[in-house]
């Protein structure tokens, strides 16, 4: 899991996921 520091009460987390033969860095932004 990758995270960023919380700014403006918003949190971003990410994980790199393999989809078949390609790699997607999926980033989710959510309110604190």
């Amino acid at each position, binding site marked *: 899991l990758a995270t960023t520091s919380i700014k403006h009460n918003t949190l971003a987390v990410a994980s790199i996921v393999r989809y078949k033969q390609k790699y997607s*860095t999926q*980033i989710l*932004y959510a*309110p604190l």
Partner: protein
Amino acid sequence: EQQAALESMRQFIKSKTSYDVLPVSYRLIVLDTSLLVKKSLNILLQNNVVSAPLWNSTKSKFAGLLTSTDFINVIQYYFQFPTKMDLVESLTLDGLRDIERAIGVAPMETASIHPFKSLYDACLKMISSKARRIPLVDKDLKTQREIVVSVLTQYRILKFVSLNCKEITRLNIPLKELNIGTYEGLSTVSMSTPVMDVIHLLTSRNVSSVPILSETQDGSQGTLINVYEGIDVLALIKGGIYNDLSLSVGEALLKRPEDFEGVFTCTLNDKLSTILEIIKKNRVHRLFVVDDQGFLKGVVTLSDILQYILLG
């Protein structure tokens, strides 16, 4: 020659899947629907994107795409219900469907497609749903939940075709003989038109840009001097100046970022071979057709080009 080139390009597009267009590694930004609309605007601008899929974490499923149309709806809502200013401030992405209902616009039907269906099918879906982008959706085998693998835009598809089909060099019939694009009934405005009226035109005419013509003393038609695009609305909201009724479209365009690449124009003598070359290297959203004095003749959108390549 052109017909043969088109046929060969169609075979190529049918032989590829949307998955093939994806880079080996890429980023996908997704927004939780409980985010404030204003916060999500900052996130889009910060990541240099104009759209993102939405994730409803209570239902654990995807809830469509956030696009500039949603921000245009918020501005329209504000002008229809000026007393609801505080609601606009506290509006979350969950509330965007209510905004659509309140101003009476149909919800953006987000057609999606499986990544391993042919690229040709994805293009047909986009053309029929008049969307400029299409989410690629698969299913998590274990939990049966949807996965948004990525979102393909018309621009990415045309760039992929331009890069991979050498036949584009044979598309040399000039636009004037192809009859692609819109040449009648174009809505135009002048620099002093209130930006609110321009935004209303974007919605009422269901277009993504409005050409701006110079003003003449005798009221005759002026030359093309700029264009207001749907994505310019993001800068308007970001600047917090959408509540200024008196703002002209010329003033609103002062918010455009310094690195804006400019409006692309062409003439009826141009051919798809050169247009696709330009798309290879520049983020072109559309081309405005002008004559040699700079008077507006029409507009060719990426939809028009895609539709012509696929269906003739």
